[in-house]
């Protein structure tokens, strides 16, 4: 990890971050059942550690790719940085405007028009209505849905919806981009357009934080790769080296993760 630059503090900083989940031994999703079990003292929890004292620092303009098998803690790391989940221990600092390019189309409502959805989506990402309205033309133009902006989203094709979501989410001037998996939507031509926009961010020196299973993508777009296993950083450095070591480990197979757990994301 590079020593801290006093003029440009790191864009993302994790200091001894540990995230522990309490997972009920039996999933009790009914409040009535929970109340009964509680009275009987039959609620037991397992503890699941998703991140174990992870420290890392990402300088502004760095492009970091996080790799690792399912359950290694990748999604949790993303969640802690996206502020969706608070660390149990340790500290997370993120400096700058964050654009989470994850699960595009969250909050899109099929009965509302494209225009209304763009405004709603923008406010979910912390922008104002006026800001979104002034960008409406540009967003619709990029998504290539100009003529349909006032039609309800349920009349859109899947491609149109995805394009509008991508256009809305990326129509910002973020400092930090959080990217989950490949961001490729629509037909080949639109995918090319997406890539173009992403390289635009790259050229303007935005910080990228990418979580993916695609080692090729990390090797192609990142300057730094972090390999997570079982909540710990196994390797951190040149994408070529890290990815090579990861491939070797994956091929050897025998050395499966110590705790074969599923990706816990969204289990709530």
């Amino acid at each position, binding site marked *: 990890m590079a020593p801290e630059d006093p003029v440009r*503090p790191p864009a993302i900083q994790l200091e001894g971050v540990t995230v522990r*989940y309490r997972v009920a031994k039996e999933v009790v999703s009914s409040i009535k059942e929970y109340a009964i079990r509680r009275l009987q003292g039959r609620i037991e929890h397992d503890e699941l550690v998703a991140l174990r004292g992870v420290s890392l620092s990402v300088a502004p303009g760095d492009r970091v790719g996080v790799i690792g098998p399912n359950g290694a803690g990748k999604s949790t790391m993303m969640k802690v940085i996206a502020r969706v989940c608070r660390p149990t221990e340790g500290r997370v600092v993120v400096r*700058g*405007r964050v654009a989470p390019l994850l699960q595009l189309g969250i909050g899109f409502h099929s*009965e509302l028009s494209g225009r209304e959805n763009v405004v709603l989506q923008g*406010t979910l990402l912390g922008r104002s*209505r006026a800001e979104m309205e002034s960008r409406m033309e540009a967003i619709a133009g990029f998504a290539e849905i100009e003529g349909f902006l006032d039609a309800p989203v349920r009349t859109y094709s899947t491609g149109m919806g995805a394009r509008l979501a991508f256009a809305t989410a990326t129509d910002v001037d973020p400092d930090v981009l959080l990217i989950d998996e490949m961001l490729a939507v629509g037909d080949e031509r639109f995918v090319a357009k997406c890539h173009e926009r992403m390289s635009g961010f790259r050229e303007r020196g935005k910080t990228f934080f990418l979580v993916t299973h695609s080692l090729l993508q990390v090797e192609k777009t990142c300057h730094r790769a972090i390999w997570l296993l079982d909540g710990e950083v196994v390797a951190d450095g040149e994408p070529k080296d890290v990815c090579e070591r990861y491939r070797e480990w994956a091929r050897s197979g025998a050395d499966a993760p110590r705790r074969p757990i599923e990706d816990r994301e969204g289990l709530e």
Partner: protein
Amino acid sequence: MTKDSRAPTDSSNDLPVYDSARLGIPFFSEAKALWEYRHLVRELIARDVTVRYKRSVLGVVWTMLNPLLNMVALTVVFSVILRQGIEHFPVYFLGGMLFWNFFAQSTGHAASLSVDAAETTRRIYVPRSVFVVAAVGVGLVNLVLSIVPLLLIVAVTGHPFHATWLFLPVAVLLGAMFCTGVGLVIFTLASRFVDVRETYMTLLTPWFFLTPIVYEPSLVPEQYRWLVRWNPMTYLVEVFRAPIYNGWLPGHNTLAFAVVAAIASLVLGWAFYASRIEEYGRGA
């Protein structure tokens, strides 16, 4: 991890900084976050109101028709069949019923929105309280719309309009505070358990009958009166209905109980919501 470890450059260029070590006490930091996301509250209210009224042309009319139909049915039952003898029963009933509907709808809607909130906050940071406040906001819009049929009934029954109607904003404010508190609790529980809304809806029916809406409190036999007396909704409904029906301002005691109920609900509901904040974003 000390407060002073913040780099000096942060303040000079106004980059927003998220620092998990500087969040402070959830009770206050969540209130601050809600304020920062007030625009989202407005958009969520607009979304729900628009969706509701877009789905059918009858949307707005239905909001007004629904209490009218209810009122006609209950008037027949209670003033013709059961002969309760409350003067201008339709006005008495509707005054209470509109307020009850506001309460039941907004808290129930808060429970429904927990699904939305879970979906949204899985990947994007948004303070979850915005969904509860939006639910109460939607309830407020519907309450204001349903004043129209109330005016109609008052006019038709020849019930006098009183200057005390001007007191209604205070009653509505207290109601909104109470609903927000209850909504926060229901919402927080519904974020954890799947059957909260359904359980809550079942409990609402007996609660409704423990609130003097279809009857007058004086009708309740002395040995059961404590049930009505310990029900905060009794006072909140009375504070809303008295200016409409009786043409007087609620009594000091009634008003005091309503204010205490509203504040207690809001503070306790918020404390409960804030106390669960650490759980969010993690597995069950």
